[in-house]
């Protein structure tokens, strides 16, 4: 793989990953601000999530008596897998060498690894809350992950590649056409993204007091830098799903070279796409009420069915 030996490509990919990780809290805050504005509340300042993270990193870590090593390693693994996942997604540059190291299936696997440890951490202390969160998280993930894989497979079959860079490149070269498989895939990915990042109507990121909470229940025992890492990882996950959605299905504007002008256009295009998606998410969260817990499987079954229909419609209608 001679073309993967150029240093500039690796450095650019690394820089892009750093940028991705750096702006993830900003995107989460953008959604929050949009929601506040829609609900007539005063929005937090733009830099609030960074201040929160700094405050948490500075605080002392307190462990429960029953916490084991798994509890202490989990934040690092959860955060690490989120960063790894962020590094293999085409963000501003389409052609990145990391995408060849780990393809779309590895991306799903990496996120699953993080979730595995997140759920173990929830069970580690031995409280009912933690177990409740883990049990629900793993149940919903068991339904969301196959749906996500089906979306990935539809794209992979379309572009004859599971390499995310290649997939994005393929869509850029295609003439604009409405493909039913992509439409179903997009819908499925949106539903999966909502479930996986714990947004309304599946989970409520703003609450700590409901028996229906999922993500917050698992990290209830975390403090200090551990909590900071967990919060950061969940913000990163939101950004990952958002970037994945906009860059896979609406890749226009993404830069295929390291040329400053096209990179500038890519930054602007991505900002605009993410801003719209974030606003839509905020709007949806304002309009929709949280679902009863046992309605969530139906929600995810819809996502799974949509993704399967997307794949079958590609095979039946568009294949060959």
């Amino acid at each position, binding site marked *: 793989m001679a073309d993967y030996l150029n240093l500039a490509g690796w450095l650019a990919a690394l820089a892009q990953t750093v940028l991705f990780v750096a702006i993830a809290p900003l995107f989460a805050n953008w959604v929050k601000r949009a929601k506040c504005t829609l609900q007539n509340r005063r929005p937090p300042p733009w830099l609030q999530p960074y201040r929160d993270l700094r405050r948490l990193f500075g605080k002392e870590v307190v462990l429960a008596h029953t916490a084991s090593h798994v509890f202490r390693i989990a934040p690092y693994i959860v955060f*690490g897998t989120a960063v790894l996942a962020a590094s293999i997604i085409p963000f501003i540059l389409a052609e990145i060498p990391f995408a060849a190291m*780990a*393809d779309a299936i590895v991306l799903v696997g990496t996120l699953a690894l993080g979730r595995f440890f997140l759920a173990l951490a929830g069970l580690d202390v031995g409280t009912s809350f933690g177990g409740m969160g883990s049990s629900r998280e793993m149940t919903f993930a068991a339904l969301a992950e196959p749906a996500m894989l089906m979306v990935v497979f539809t794209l992979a079959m379309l572009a004859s590649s599971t390499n995310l860079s290649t997939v994005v490149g393929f869509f850029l070269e295609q003439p604009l056409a409405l493909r039913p498989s992509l439409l179903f895939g997009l819908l499925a990915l949106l539903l999966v993204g909502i479930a996986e990042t714990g947004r309304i109507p599946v989970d409520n990121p703003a609450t700590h007091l409901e028996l229906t909470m999922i993500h917050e229940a698992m990290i209830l025992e975390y403090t200090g830098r551990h909590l900071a890492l967990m919060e950061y990882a969940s913000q990163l996950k939101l950004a990952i799903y958002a970037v994945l959605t906009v860059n896979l299905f609406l890749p226009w504007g993404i830069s295929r070279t390291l040329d400053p002008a096209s990179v500038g256009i890519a930054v602007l295009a991505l900002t605009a796409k993410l801003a719209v998606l974030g606003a839509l998410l905020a709007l949806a969260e304002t309009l929709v009420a949280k679902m009863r817990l046992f309605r969530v499987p139906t929600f995810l079954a819809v996502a799974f069915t949509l993704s399967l229909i997307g794949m079958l419609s590609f095979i039946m209608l568009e294949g060959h």
Partner: protein
Amino acid sequence: MFEFSPAMLVYAAVCSTLAGGFASLFADRWPAVQKFLVFPLLGLSGVVSIAACLAALSGAPAVTDELALGLPWLQWHVRLDSLSGFFLGVIGLITLAVSAFGPGYVREYSNSHYSLALLGVMTALFVAGMQLVVVADDAFAFMVAWELMSVASYFLVAFEHEEAANRRAAFLYLLMAQVGAILILLSFGVLAAHGGDFTFAAMRHAGLTPLWAAASFGLGLLGFGMKAGIVPLHVWLPEAHPVAPSHISALMSGVMLKVAVYGFIRLVFDLLGDPHWSWGVVVLAVGSVTSLYGVLYALVQHDLKRLLAYHSVENIGIIYIGLGLALIFFSANLPAFGVLGLIAALYHTLNHALFKSLLFLGAGALLQHGHERDLEHMGGLIRRMPWTALFFLIGCLSISALPPFNGFVSEWLTFQTALQATTLESGVLRAVIPISAAVLALSGALAATCFVKVYGVAFLGQARSRKVRHAREASHGMVLAQAVLACLCLLFGVLPTTTVEFLSRISVDLTGFGVTAATRQGWLWLTPIAPEVASYSAPLVLLGVLLALGAWAAVYFSSRKRRLVQPLPRRDAWDCGFGPLTPRMQYSASAFAMPIRHIFRPAWRLHEEKVREMDPQLSTRPLQLRYLMHADDLSWQYFYLPVERFVQGAARRVGRIQTGHLRHYLAYSFFTLIALLWLIT
């Protein structure tokens, strides 16, 4: 005069195993024999098997030999080719691990009145049987070795025979093993009748008509499937695996099921010749159903070994999905993708052998030192058995198909094969394959859920029973065995390209095609079809992770030196202000799986028992609450019981002619005689 051949290694391995069996005859009188002779001989056999495997996979041509055993006109034919060599290697690896684990584990039996000699002899015969099955080159030797394996393992399942449930499980196992053996025999019979001989060499040129080939395939699928545990022929697995001693469970689940897979591959890819596309669809459907069924039943179990047995069913399903894909692509004349499916199946065979044995050995350690098989009574074992906990975690990660461990690589390869469905001509096949990929994705995700449950409930949290609270770490040998398997799980996960290169030789031998594209980019890159289609570089991913870890550690230790000396403060967990948390307040295994039970309700028949004792003074205050849950295997209800009723009914009807009167029997003889005379005239 004396020339070295890899066949010698096979004989050495089998002889070493049998010598171990002979030595263990004295184990009852001198228990030290067990530790210093029997298990080392088994380990030696394992090492020699691995050597034979490497010799066979290093590109040497197949070695054939004849032994002066067997029938006068049919000597035992032995053949060591790359496929046999690979399976011999799998047997060797697990036998080696078991030989390290065994001495510590069987100590438990030295104070009981179960015979250690019997255990040793049967273990040796069992291993020797498996080693002979994979090198047998004629149907006769194959069946003898197969029966040796089955019958010896029956005695191992029935080892703790004082409990009626164990005897029942062993009988079920024996019954199904024998029915399976008859089907295999019939399948070989079809081939032998057309090939004119019992040797596999003759069978390869049998030139069957499509109908006979389909008959032989169907019989083989059922016969080998009965041993491998495809749904609905899997029912003996969850009964037999939990009751056998744990190191035997590891051998049975890790290796014996693989021997059945070997038989199936040998029959379908080697002996039967060109496959028909419908075989591929059948195998794919069987694999998909098996994998989903296995994992759904595993989720509702709370007996650890039973749960692992159901996961074996799931993994056999994944292997069959790979084989089914291979058959479909071969029959569609797309050998490049067919080979990929075959390699994915073989890779998963190796992986499952490693991580399932690791998990069973871990379960054995828990059983011996925590005295528990029931997850609902475990908890907090990570503090009592840190090493077992670490290696068990690696096993859980591997079986859940998470990167960078080995289970992920084989599932990745299976997915990559399935994604090539678009190249097929037939629209039906193109639609069937993605659905089975969806099933595979679902069962993979459910497996992760299940192993979060297992690990979280058994090793994390607080101990739920007194014995578990006082568990000790397993002995050095037992930990070592798990460590070796865990390292191999990581190794095969990180070096997939090298592994695929070896496996490719098997498919070249079997089908004439290999995967040249997969390894063309060097050992760093696994590119199954072409670099632009898909690539995975586990070493680079791991390197990236290690670099990140290193950077973090450097920052951590340089910036905050005081953390090294100051342990983190510990406080009570958040209890909502209601007083201390008790172990009973934790989520239990049943509770963890409750949402899943709710979603997939129709998949099981659940027997739930809720016991509630109320306070006599205050009728609203419960004194004691108990919840018992048991999931019945649906295949009993829909398959076995109807079959049993039919057999009983038929027997009763036939039994009617047995009147007990002598004159009736004389009349039967008379009329039979007349009929025969009429026939021959």
